[in-house]
C-alpha cells in the first residue's frame, strides 16, 4: 500500500460549499479517524477518497491519480463501506459477503475455489459461520455490522474506508467492532480510515484524528493534540471536558449549571 494523498479537494452542491480546499495524507498502516459535527463533510470526504464522488483537486494512491483508475483497479486498492449500505432484505449473508469478491472475478465469471476459501475465512474471523445462510433482514444491528465488515475484508484490499461503522451500535458492540478492526488491522497491515461520532472511541483507537468543520480541516494530529476541550467546545457548540482515564482519552459532555 502507498500513501493516499488528498490534495486541494473542493466539493460544491449548487452554491453550497461542502468541502473547501481539503488536503490530507494517509500513511500506510495508519488508523485515521475523521470526526466533526453533523454536516461537516465527513461522509463526502470519505466518498471522494473512495473515488465515488467527483471533486476538484485530486486523490492519489502513490503516484496514481484515483480518477485515472478503472472502478476495478480502484476496488483492488480500497474497500468502502457507506454510512447507509443497501441491504437487499432477502440476500443471504454469504451471498452478501461474496459481493466483496467482485473485483477479483471477471465480469461474466463466477466465484472460484479461492473466493470460497476467503469467504469461509472471513466468516470464521467475524464469527459469522452460523449465520451464513441467514437472510440480511433477520440479523441484529451488531450481526449486520459484522456482515458489512466481512464484505469489506473479503475484498482483500490494503486500505479500508468505513463511514460511521459504529454509530448504530450499543456500547458493547461499538467496542467489539473496533477491537475486531484493531485485531484484523494488525494481522493484515491494513490502513484504516473511518468517520466517527464518538470522540472518546476515536481518541482511543486511532493513530491520528482529522477534525472537520464546515468543510474545512479545523485540526489534525494525534488524539491528544486534536481533542482539546476549548476547541471542541467551540466547534460543537457544547460544554466538553477531556480527561485521561488509565492513559485512555475520554471526551465528556457536561451539563450546564445555569438552569
Amino acid at each position, binding site marked *: 500500500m502507498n500513501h493516499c494523498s488528498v490534495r486541494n479537494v473542493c466539493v460544491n452542491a449548487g452554491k453550497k460549499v461542502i468541502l473547501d480546499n481539503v488536503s490530507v495524507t494517509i500513511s500506510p498502516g495508519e488508523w485515521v479517524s475523521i470526526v466533526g459535527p453533523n454536516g461537516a463533510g465527513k461522509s463526502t470526504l470519505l*466518498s471522494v477518497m*473512495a473515488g*465515488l464522488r467527483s471533486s476538484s483537486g485530486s486523490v492519489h494512491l502513490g503516484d496514481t491519480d484515483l480518477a485515472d483508475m*478503472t*472502478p*476495478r*483497479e*480502484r*476496488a*483492488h486498492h480500497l*474497500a*468502502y463501506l*457507506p454510512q447507509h*449500505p*443497501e441491504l*437487499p432484505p*432477502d*440476500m*443471504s*449473508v*454469504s*451471498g452478501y459477503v*461474496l*459481493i*466483496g469478491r*467482485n*473485483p477479483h*472475478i471477471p*465480469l*461474466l*465469471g*463466477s*466465484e472460484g475455489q479461492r473466493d*470460497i*476459501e476467503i*469467504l*469461509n475465512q472471513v466468516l*470464521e474471523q467475524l464469527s459469522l*459461520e*452460523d449465520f*451464513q*445462510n*441467514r437472510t440480511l433482514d433477520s440479523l441484529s444491528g451488531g450481526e449486520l455490522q459484522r456482515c458489512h465488515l466481512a464484505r469489506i475484508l473479503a*475484498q482483500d484490499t490494503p486500505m479500508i474506508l468505513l463511514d460511521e461503522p459504529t454509530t448504530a451500535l450499543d456500547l458493547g458492540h461499538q467496542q467489539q467492532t473496533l477491537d475486531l478492526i484493531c485485531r484484523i488491522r494488525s494481522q493484515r497491515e491494513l490502513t484504516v480510515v473511518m468517520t466517527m461520532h464518538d470522540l472518546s472511541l476515536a481518541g482511543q483507537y486511532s493513530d491520528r484524528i482529522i477534525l472537520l468543520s464546515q468543510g474545512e480541516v479545523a485540526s489534525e494530529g494525534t488524539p491528544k493534540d486534536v481533542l482539546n476541550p476549548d476547541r471542541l467546545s467551540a466547534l460543537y457548540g457544547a460544554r466538553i471536558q477531556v480527561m485521561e482515564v488509565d492513559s485512555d482519552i475520554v471526551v465528556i459532555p457536561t451539563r450546564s449549571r445555569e438552569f
Partner: protein
Amino acid sequence: MSKAGPSSASPLAGRLQVSAVLIGGFACILAMGTSLAIGPASIDKTAVFKELIDRLPFIAIDSGLSPIHKSVIWEVRFPRVLLGALVGSTLAVSGASYQAVFRNPLADPYLLGAAAGAGLGATVAIVTGSGDGIGAFDMVPVLAFLGAMSAVVMTYLLGYSSGARRSPSALLLAGVAVAAFLTAIQTFIQQQNVDSIRQVYSWILGRLNTASWTEVQLLAPYALIATLVMFLSRRTLDVMRLGDTEASSVGLRPQVVRFLVIAAASLGTAASVSVSGLIAFVGIIVPHAVRLLAGTSNRIVLPLSVLYGAAFLAFVDLLGRSLVSPAEIPIGVITAFCGAPFFVVVLRTSRKALA
C-alpha cells in the same frame, strides 16, 4: 479449513437447489413429451415414444409408424414443441433480466418497445405482401426483428439523452413513449390496409402453429447467445442489487452492466417475437413463479427461468391446441388470460418491495 462441518459443504446460500432444477427439468420433459404425443393426427403414443428413442444415437428400434406419421412428428410437432420451449425460455429469462436491471419485479421484456417495434415491422411486411409469415425467406420475422431492435435502440437513445445515466427509470419512460409512437404508426398502417387485418391480428396474438424448422433455425442462434450472456450475468446482477454507488465501489461499471444485459435481453426478445408473434406475460409469470418457489437471488431466478419458461410455454401451447381441438386458441390469448390475474398477484405481493 479446520472445521469441515456440513455448513461449509454449501458455502453459497441461495445456490440453485437440486430439487428445483429437477422439478423444472421434469416439467419440461413432461410438457414437451405430451405435446409430441398429442395432436389432430391420431398417432399411437407408444409408437411416438419408440420413434423418439429410435433417434437417439446407437439405438435402433422400429416404431412401426408410416412415413407420413413420422413426418408429422419430425416436421410438424417436433419443431413446434422446440420453438415453444425456446421462445418460452428466452422470454422468461429476458423478463427476469429486465427485472433485475430495473430493480422492478413488474418489468417486462416488451417494456423498451420491442413488442411495438416488432408489431410495426410485421405489419409492414404483411401489408406490403412481402411475406405471410410462413416458410423460408419470409420478410415477417426479418422486419419484426429489425423493428424490435430499432425500437429498443430508439428507447435507449431517447432515455440517455434525458438522463437515464443517472436513473434507469428514464429508460422506462422513454420505452413507453417509443411504444406508443410505434403502435400509433402500426395502427395507422393497419387501418389503411383492412384486408390484411386478420393476418396482422393472428401475428399479434402470438402463434406457434406455423412453426417449422426454419423458425427454429432463425431463433436458435440469437436465443442461445442472448441466454448465455444473461445466464453469465447472474452473479453481477446480484451485485447490482446494492445500487450503483456500492456496485461501482466493488469494481463494476453499472452502465456497462445495464447495457450488456439490456442488449442481450432485447436481442433474445426481438428474436423470439419475430418468429412467434407477441406472446405476453411469459416474462413476468415465469420469473415470479420461480421467485416464489426457489428464492429471489438472480443466481437462482435466471437459470431457473430458462427451464421453467420452456416448460411453461410448451404446456400453454399444448393447452391452446387441445382445448378446442381441432381448432386452436392463439397462444398469446392464453398467456394473457393467465397473466393478467397473475400480474395483480405480483403487484400485491411485491408492493412491499416497491415501497
